[in-house]
């Protein structure tokens, strides 16, 4: 048991001795240096362990033999030791990171470094205000000096600006301390109470607190900090951004008890503003370290805000929220700064050199995801709880600002990530430095450790909920295997998983289980066509599939949301694997995250669930408030690509790898449908007074028609299918929104049907892409002769999509129109009719442009798609044919599912289905169609004379002969006349809207960031003005 005072003494002593030691050998001085740092960590760790697990009471160290307030005292409790452990740990690893530089640099940097660490330790532990000032100045001076470590002109000027700002702040601090003493006669914060400061007295507190706050770099008085972040050596800057900030933040935390509430609220709001604006300004930032600077400032703002807002929350929540953000920020920011030291490229698009080293790329991903608040990292949990807290305390403006800020954060972080993973490598690859990589990886391990701790210890999640992450880890370990082996293993894993979760509590779960798990399992077969290793692919795929499954069995909001985020991130990573997928995946991530935030708020508003049954069951007895319904609906509709928020959908579908698109379209969109159905389940019993689902229904039908039109105007086969998915899901959304028996039967029927035909279509297109290497339909044509099996798939599927009897699509159409008309949604039904007629346009377009018409020269020797694509296609076709010929196979169970919530509105008699409006007998229809098909076929075979098979150019061509297949194939811009007829309705208004929204945000960010002129004086002026403004706002 070493007294913590020794860590101060030892640091100081060794710090000053270093210059002497260094005279002998640099090795000795380095040993001493790292020895001290390690000693610090060990001592603090020891204390932390004692406080946390042995229940040792908080330790108070009195200096000079007197008790406080007469003499200065230090305090070490669980909080202090936690902060110190972290700061010292980061300090140690930053030092390791800087090992090479320390070996060569002037010995004074080592001294300064030790003194800096000492200052931090002192600052955290001391309870005396003036002592704080002293430690703060020690910290500052050593930091100022260390800024010149890199010895570039830039870092010098940045350091000077830093000093200007620093001295201004410390002047305020000193004045504050003095006046506090003047008013309270005391300097120990344990003996100062806010009540001692009346009238003018509060100025003293104001000066003190604003000084600390300015050190925390609030927007807009923080230009100096950004310059420092940008210019200073990345090892040092990580210390500044992490260790210094942590210490000062803790300083703020320490003085919080003596501050009046109105101060705190203003600081909280200022923190939120800082968070929002620094993330917004970061949008325009291209330089990595400055970007990180913006992000750090934002994160500190968020920490301040969460410190303030959680003041009245239960202790464990404070620990989770503040601690979560704290750890998250510390680890990820330090890690990213270090990575920037490893990468040595300023521009974020040059970070693609990271692709040269897989483990670094993974680390980069971990830090970035942690920073963005992606589960399972600590930030996610903190955000979740903070949102809940803010909702409960009705701080909605702060909430929306924080979420908006987070969204901006997501945008720039993921832009960075996608650029790193996807942009072409132009920059030179640096040499990797072992000491740097070691420290950085250590942080990655800590991040994962904390994630695991929170999940396991705090929330106590069972293994099944962590399974998606575990899948990534496991596949990562066996990534050296060829992809076919991994694919088979994944298939087995999915089946085993399905078997494990199989005993569902309700039929609706079973239904979605079939869509999610069985559908995925069949789809996996198509991925077996991959050659090579497909590194990382199966991990994310399994993560996504397990997330689908976990969605069904989630028993509370958090589980659901966690799984949802797993699903989002894994699908994002899968989409990102596409060759040109940078923009597409980014857009997907942004929209998904926005949706997720809305859902998060929606869940926060929702009442607590009772019992431990799955959401599908428990939500039936819960009345969701209107706001919750609205937010959740929007969130789920974003995922299902409804009108207005659909623009991510075509990009993501088109740019993802060929065999991934089918997962996204056929299964991922159903997750949105499932979510909406959850809301609907609560809606059944507790419909709110304002019938929000009526409007959801309208959005659904409009999505259907707009999606159909957009699909008709595409040249790219996958985009066409993507818009088609959008249109079909529009039907489903509308049907769910009806909240009636027939509506839900049709929605589920359509969902099932869509899963099958869209999988088949996407896999067929994947096979064609595999052979032709193009997605543009007009570049294909005439492939029916070369790929007949794929043609049959597409033919059957498009008949199923279009709803032409006798295939299963008609069942969906019949159900949905009957439902609409009997529900009184007449005009909506009319729009749906229109949509379904328009769908013929794109369906014909895809089959004609690809398979019919003229075969191109370059495709004359093409072969049928590989067998791995054909097998899943025909499994799905079998499914379609089965439910076409025997619709009862599916209608009966769906009827039962829907009867769980409503009275039945259909009667099933043999193969006939009767509704109150009409009837349909799929079996008879099938037989009659067969008969009607065979009779003319026989007639034709009988009557037709000698049949001469001719080739593609044997066409009547106005007595001429065709020039070339390209010019004879009518496929490009096939529906130009319709576009013309639509006139102004054909403009991409929604796309334009989002585009201009993005442009506006970026321009605004660009406009605002011009306040950072780069002039030190301006920064000082900012600080002064900021102080004045805060002073006025606080009304001191």
């Amino acid at each position, binding site marked *: 048991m070493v007294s913590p005072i020794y860590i101060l003494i030892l640091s100081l002593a060794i710090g000053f001795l270093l210059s002497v030691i260094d005279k002998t050998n640099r090795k000795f001085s380095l040993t001493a240096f790292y020895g001290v740092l390690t000693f610090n960590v060990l001592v603090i760790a020891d204390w932390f362990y004692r406080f946390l697990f042995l229940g040792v009471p908080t330790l108070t160290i009195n200096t000079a033999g007197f008790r406080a307030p007469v003499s200065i005292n230090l305090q070490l409790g669980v909080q202090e030791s936690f902060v110190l452990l972290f700061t010292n740990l980061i300090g140690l690893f930053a030092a390791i990171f800087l090992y090479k530089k320390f070996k060569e640099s002037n010995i004074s940097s080592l001294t300064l470094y030790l003194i800096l660490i000492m200052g931090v330790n002192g600052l955290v532990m001391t309870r005396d205000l003036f002592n704080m000032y002293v430690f703060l100045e020690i910290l500052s001076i050593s930091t100022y000096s260390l800024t010149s470590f890199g010895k570039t002109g830039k870092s010098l000027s940045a350091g000077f600006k830093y000093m200007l700002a620093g001295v201004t702040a410390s002047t305020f601090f000193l004045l504050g301390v003095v006046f506090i003493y003047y008013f309270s006669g005391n300097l120990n914060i344990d003996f100062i109470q806010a009540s001692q400061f009346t009238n003018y007295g509060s100025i003293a507190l104001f000066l003190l607190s604003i000084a600390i706050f300015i050190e925390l770099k609030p927007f807009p008085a923080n230009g100096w900090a950004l310059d420092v972040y940008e210019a200073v050596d990345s090892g040092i800057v990580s210390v500044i951004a992490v260790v210094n900030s942590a210490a000062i933040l803790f300083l703020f935390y320490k003085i919080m008890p003596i501050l009046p509430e109105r101060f705190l609220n203003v600081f909280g709001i200022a923190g939120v503003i800082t968070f929002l604006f620094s993330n917004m300004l970061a949008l325009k930032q291209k330089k990595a370290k400055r970007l990180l600077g913006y992000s750090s400032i934002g994160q500190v703002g968020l920490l301040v805000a969460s410190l303030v807002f959680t003041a009245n929350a239960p202790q464990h929540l404070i620990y989770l929220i503040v601690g979560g953000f704290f750890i998250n920020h510390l680890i990820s920011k330090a890690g990213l700064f270090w990575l920037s030291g490893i990468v040595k490229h300023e521009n974020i698009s040059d970070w693609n050199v990271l692709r040269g080293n897989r483990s670094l790329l993974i680390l980069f991903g971990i830090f970035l995801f942690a920073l963005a608040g992606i589960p399972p990292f600590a930030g996610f949990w903190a955000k979740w709880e903070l949102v809940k807290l803010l909702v409960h305390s009705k701080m909605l403006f702060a909430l929306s600002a924080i979420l908006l800020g987070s969204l901006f954060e997501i945008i720039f972080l993921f832009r960075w990530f996608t650029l790193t993973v996807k942009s072409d490598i132009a920059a030179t690859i640096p040499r990797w430095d072992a000491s740097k990589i070691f420290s950085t990886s250590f942080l990655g391990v800590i991040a994962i450790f904390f994630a695991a701790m929170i999940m396991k210890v705090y929330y106590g999640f069972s293994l099944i909920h962590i399974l998606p992450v575990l899948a990534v880890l496991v596949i990562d370990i066996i990534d050296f295997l060829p992809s076919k082996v991994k694919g088979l293993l994944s298939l087995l894993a999915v089946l085993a998983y399905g078997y494990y979760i199989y005993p569902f509590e309700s039929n609706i779960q079973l239904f979605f289980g079939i869509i999610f798990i069985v559908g995925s399992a069949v789809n996996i077969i198509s991925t077996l066509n991959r050659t090579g290793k497909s590194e990382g692919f199966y991990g994310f795929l399994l993560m996504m599939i397990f997330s689908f499954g976990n969605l069904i069995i989630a028993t509370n909001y958090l589980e659901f949301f966690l799984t949802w985020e797993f699903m989002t991130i894994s699908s994002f990573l899968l989409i990102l694997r596409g060759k040109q997928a940078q923009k597409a995946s980014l857009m997907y991530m942004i929209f998904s995250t926005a949706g997720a935030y809305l859902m998060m708020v929606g869940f926060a508003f929702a009442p607590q669930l009772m019992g431990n049954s799955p959401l599908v069951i428990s939500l039936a007895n819960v009345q969701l408030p209107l706001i919750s319904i609205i937010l959740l609906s929007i969130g789920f509709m974003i995922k299902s690509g409804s009108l207005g928020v659909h623009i991510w959908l075509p990009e993501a579908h088109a740019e993802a790898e060929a065999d991934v698109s089918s997962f996204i379209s056929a299964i991922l969109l159903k997750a949105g449908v499932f979510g909406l159905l959850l809301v609907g389940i609560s809606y059944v019993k507790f419909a709110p007074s304002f019938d929000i689902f009526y409007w959801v229904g309208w959005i659904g039908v409009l999505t259907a028609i707009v999606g159909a039109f957009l699909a008709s105007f595409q040249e790219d086969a996958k985009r066409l299918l993507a818009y088609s998915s959008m249109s079909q899901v529009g039907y489903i959304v509308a049907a769910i929104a009806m909240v009636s028996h027939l509506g839900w039967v049709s929605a589920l029927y359509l969902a099932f049907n869509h899963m099958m035909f869209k999988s088949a279509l996407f896999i067929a297109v994947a096979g064609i892409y595999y052979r032709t290497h193009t997605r543009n339909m007009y570049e294909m044509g005439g492939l029916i002769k070369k790929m007949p099996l794929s043609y049959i798939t597409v033919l059957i599927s498009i008949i199923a999509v279009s709803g032409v009897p006798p295939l299963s699509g008609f069942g969906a159409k019949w159900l949905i129109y009957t439902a609409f008309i009997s529900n009184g949604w007449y005009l909506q039904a009319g729009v749906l009719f229109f949509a379904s007629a328009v769908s013929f346009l794109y369906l014909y377009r895809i089959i004609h442009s690809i398979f019919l018409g003229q075969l191109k020269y370059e495709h004359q020797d093409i072969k049928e798609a590989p067998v791995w694509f054909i097998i899943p296609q025909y499994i799905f076709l079998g499914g379609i044919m089965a439910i076409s010929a025997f619709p009862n196979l599916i209608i009966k169970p769906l009827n039962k599912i829907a009867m769980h919530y409503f009275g039945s509105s259909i009667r099933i008699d043999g193969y006939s289905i009767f509704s109150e409006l009409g009837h349909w007998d799929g079996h008879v229809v099938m037989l009659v169609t067969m008969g009607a098909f065979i009779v003319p076929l026989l007639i034709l075979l009988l009557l037709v004379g000698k049949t001469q*098979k001719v080739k593609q150019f*044997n066409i009547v061509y106005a007595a001429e*002969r065709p020039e070339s297949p390209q010019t004879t194939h009518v496929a490009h811009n096939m529906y130009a006349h319709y576009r013309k007829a639509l006139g102004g309705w054909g403009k991409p208004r929604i796309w334009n809207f989002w585009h201009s929204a993005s442009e506006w945000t970026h321009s605004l960010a660009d406009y605002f960031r011009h306040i950072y002129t780069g002039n030190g004086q301006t920064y000082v002026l900012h600080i002064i003005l900021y102080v004045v403004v805060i002073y006025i706002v606080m009304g001191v």
Partner: protein
Amino acid sequence: MEKKDLNEIEKEMKLANEGLPEKERILFSDARPSRVEPLNKYLEQFVNWARARSLWLLAFGTGCGATELRPLMTSRFDVSRFGIAGRPTPRQASVFIIGGYASIKTIKRIVRSYEQMQGPKYVIALGSCTINGGMYYDSYNTINRIDYYIPVDTYIAGCMPRPEALIAGFNRLKEKIQKGECDGMNKYADNFDWYKKNQKQIIKDWNMPDYNW
């Protein structure tokens, strides 16, 4: 009889299509037209009766005579009374009217269109030019006799023949059809090489397959 290899027979049945570039040969059918026997007597009589009453013209104005076809359709002469109607595509038409003089450039198109019609197909050659060159008998660019290039069923002389003459010609054609005398399709298939030789002799840049299916 000498036994021939099956492949060889097949090869003989194929056309060489030498006029086409190598790359384009896969785009055109190379099957050779062959004779198709009529149905049995009574059935053939019946369908001939129907064929004669449902003559579908190929609406392709190959020469100045095409101007005389228009009045035929209008109210004054109205050949639709006889079941005669225009079709816009050779695939569906059964009667091809060569409307007067045929330049070399036109004869190429005439041959192509004729070959694209489905048998049984009938040709009416209209105007003196188709018979012996008419007033263009000495032109360097106008053929003299259409029947050297495609089989003709009925000639209508005149320069130009009036619509009444055309109707008379149609009636003559109908009679012939009903008697089963119009078998130009088989005649063409039987004498395919001779026709081709004549055609190729005047059509110099032969950028089409030997038989346009």
